[in-house]
């Protein structure tokens, strides 16, 4: 009689252990937990790529492909994103960072076994700035001598300041001294492309049957709206380190689709920002949720050429009247941090200037000084945003805060993405939602947005003092001095307030427990070279538990 219940209990205990992913408080992990049997990583990748040519697209889903099938002088460290030697084994700059010299490895090869030399870099970098290539990242090469003039069709590509000293030495002459140049080099804009393949196949060189790359993976299959399959490149110089045999990228554009595929166990990891915002609070309770800081900001561009917004006191007042803590934490609440400055935190060595906090009293005083006491006579401004639930929530909160604190009325207007972008570029707005994803870990990727009168400078704010501070900073080879100059520039930007920083985004993604080597980092960049499938994850996971 005694034996039966104990056997029953044992069986129960075994069941509980087998399903160790669940407790009384509910499951620890989100959805089905069946690890893949092969070394294959399945990733939710956000959208169908526009192109597989790294010179022809600037999309984030595309970057996840480019970064793994091509490799330039340096690559990202998977945790810190600092440049690590890739095709370059060493580099040096002259005293004022005006000329950079890179020494290339001798065993670098394309996936069709063609050796890679410095001449391939020269050809590739000339290609990206040639106007005919129409590369969205051509502006990255503006830092290299004559880059901008070539892109604007004023000089031939041969005049670009890059040359092959010999097969394995690349010399880069900068337009102006550029101390942070090395931080940009892991970006795929600076990668090396197979000249022989591109000249042979033209625009069709990126099709899987023609494709040649030089990264840890090659494109094996590309079925639109279905999947892109990357296969391990056996000729990659560091192929011994690569542990995945295949990576399957799924272009699930709908956020709910990513969450569903993840929950059903069809994908192992979803990149950040591809999860449905309203569910983040709930998803956060699972162990496979990953959060962290992200190098992306959310701000409002103020049209400084229009009406009351010409007055800096009005712009400051609008900023001071916003309770950004409430917006970030109460209205959005996915881990965002309220922003008082423009550059997201986390850049090593850079201390952002202090930004003005929530201060409705001073805001009212400034508005009165500008001639609008209590908001009287203040014209009705229109705030534009692209149609999205999240943007509407923020805009409504801002509308209410300005009404309550300053007594001014604004209209809200949402628009379809293309229509909205066109409006922002022709500066046909009073206030427009804005956001920027940093391209490399340096304040200049943000601060340079407003240093010149470009199409990205949505507020239309061009200030000689700011432009001067930025050129000084970018030319300063000493890291500490440069950071101080950048800090002064940002302080001036915040003082003039052509943009109202609202919050900094937070990483929010899901990763199955068997995915190893995928670390949260500021750019949400995860070189697949370092990623692996950890088959012993339950043991490792338990060992790591306190």
């Amino acid at each position, binding site marked *: 009689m005694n034996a039966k219940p104990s056997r029953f209990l044992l069986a129960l205990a075994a069941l509980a252990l087998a399903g160790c992913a669940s407790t009384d408080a509910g499951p620890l992990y989100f959805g089905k937990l069946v690890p893949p049997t092969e070394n294959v990583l399945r990733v939710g990748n956000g959208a169908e790529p526009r192109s597989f040519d790294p010179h022809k697209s*600037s999309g984030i889903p595309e970057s996840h492909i480019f970064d793994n099938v091509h490799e330039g002088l340096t690559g990202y460290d998977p945790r810190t994103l600092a440049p690590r030697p890739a095709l370059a084994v060493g580099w040096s700059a002259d005293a004022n960072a005006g000329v950079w010299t890179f020494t290339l490895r001798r065993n670098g090869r394309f996936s069709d076994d063609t050796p890679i030399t410095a001449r391939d870099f020269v050809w590739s970098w000339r290609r990206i700035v040639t106007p005919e290539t129409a590369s969205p990242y051509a502006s990255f090469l503006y830092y290299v001598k004559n880059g901008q003039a070539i892109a604007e069709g004023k000089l031939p590509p041969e005049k670009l300041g890059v040359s092959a000293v010999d097969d394995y030495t690349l010399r880069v002459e900068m337009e102006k001294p550029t101390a942070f140049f090395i931080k940009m080099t892991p970006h795929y804009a600076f990668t090396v492309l197979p000249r022989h393949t591109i000249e042979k196949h033209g625009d069709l060189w990126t099709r899987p049957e023609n494709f040649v790359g030089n990264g840890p993976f090659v494109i094996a299959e590309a079925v*639109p709206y279905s999947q892109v399959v990357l296969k391990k490149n056996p000729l990659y110089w560091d192929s011994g380190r690569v542990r995945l045999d295949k990576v399957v990228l799924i272009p699930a554009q*709908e956020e709910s*689709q990513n969450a569903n*595929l993840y929950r059903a166990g*069809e994908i192992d990891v979803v990149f950040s920002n591809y999860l449905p915002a309203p569910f983040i609070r709930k998803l956060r309770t699972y162990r496979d949720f990953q959060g962290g800081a992200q190098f992306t900001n959310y701000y409002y561009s103020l049209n400084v050429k229009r009406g009351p917004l010409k007055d800096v006191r009005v712009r400051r007042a609008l900023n001071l009247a916003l309770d950004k803590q409430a917006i970030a934490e109460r209205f959005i609440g996915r881990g965002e941090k309220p922003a008082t400055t423009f550059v997201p935190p986390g850049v090593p060595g850079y201390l952002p200037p202090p930004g003005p906090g929530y201060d409705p009293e001073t805001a009212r005083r400034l508005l009165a000084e500008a001639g609008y006491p209590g908001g009287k006579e203040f014209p009705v401004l229109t705030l534009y945003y692209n149609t999205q639930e999240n943007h509407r929530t923020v805009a409504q909160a801002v509308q209410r805060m300005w009404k309550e604190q300053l007594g001014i009325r604004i209209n809200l207007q949402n628009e379809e993405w293309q229509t909205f972008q066109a409006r922002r570029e022709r500066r046909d707005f009073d206030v427009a939602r804005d956001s920027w994803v940093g391209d490399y870990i340096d304040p200049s990727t943000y601060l340079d947005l407003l240093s010149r009168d470009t199409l990205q400078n949505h507020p239309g704010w061009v200030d000689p003092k700011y432009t001067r501070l930025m050129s000084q900073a970018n030319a300063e080879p000493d890291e500490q001095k440069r950071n101080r100059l950048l800090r002064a520039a940002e302080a001036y930007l915040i003082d003039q307030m052509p943009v109202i920083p609202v919050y900094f985004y937070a990483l929010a993604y899901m990763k199955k427990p068997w995915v190893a080597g995928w670390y949260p980092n500021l750019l949400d960049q995860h070189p697949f070279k370092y990623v692996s499938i950890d088959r012993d994850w339950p043991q490792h996971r338990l060992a790591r538990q306190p």
Partner: protein
Amino acid sequence: MLKFVLRRLLLAIPVLLVVVTISFFLVRLAPGGPFMEERAYPPAVIEKLNAKYGLDKPLHEQYFNYMQRVILHLDLGPSTRYLDRTVGDVIAQGLPNSMLLGGTAYLTALVLGMAAGIIAALRQNSGVDYGAMAVAVLGVSIPNFVLGPLLVIVLSLTLYWLPPARWGDLSHLILPALTLSALYTAYIARLTRSGLVEVLRSDYIRTARAKGLRESVVLLRHALRGSLLPVVSYSGPALAFLLGGTIVVEKLFLIPGLGNFFIEAANARDSFIVVGVTLVVATLLIVLNLVVDIVYALIDPRIAYK
């Protein structure tokens, strides 16, 4: 009959011309443009791109060039959204998948709808009848963007029986086909039931039964045939509609069909794809409707085309 077919085909030409013209100008009138990116291109680059795709010319010239290319060379042009594909590639990749999904949904609707209709008609006014018709009313009234996610929640995310999205094998086809077919299944069930109920009351069926024929023979050979005409006239246009791609279901289940290409192209202002896909779907609709009319004539001798 031949004359009728020829006339219909000739009539199709002005219809297609109007379709192409309207879609061409509509897409051009929308704000934004194919090269509008968050990371804005320098004006010099935009100029080169416009020149490459012939978008730098005046609109009427672009229109005539496009029509010339389509009519004389049967070339639907390049794509500005998918840089290494032409519109022809996009249609070749998308149309078969859309047709497979639409065809499966159509067959599902016919089989399930007719089965439910027959059972309901035979058990008239029973619980089964009321149950089947209640489900049919639901099927007609629930839009597919509600039904799809509901099916996903139950069958994919709770029971883990079927994948919630993607394309590749049979298991990926079931949920989208069910979602897409629900409306048609329900309609066909109601049409079958009402047709059959009426026929079963008619004199020739009583005669057939009086002759002592087996009930299955009465039903299948005599009654069903007479009751099918409304089903055929409904399901013909339904097939045309289903095969042409259904944007909502393709988007819901991430199906590499024409619908997904189309919606993305519209968002990215890729006028070549928008006009090209519209043209292909319009042609498909016209041809299938013609086929349906011909089938009517074959089934029902009372219908004759002149």
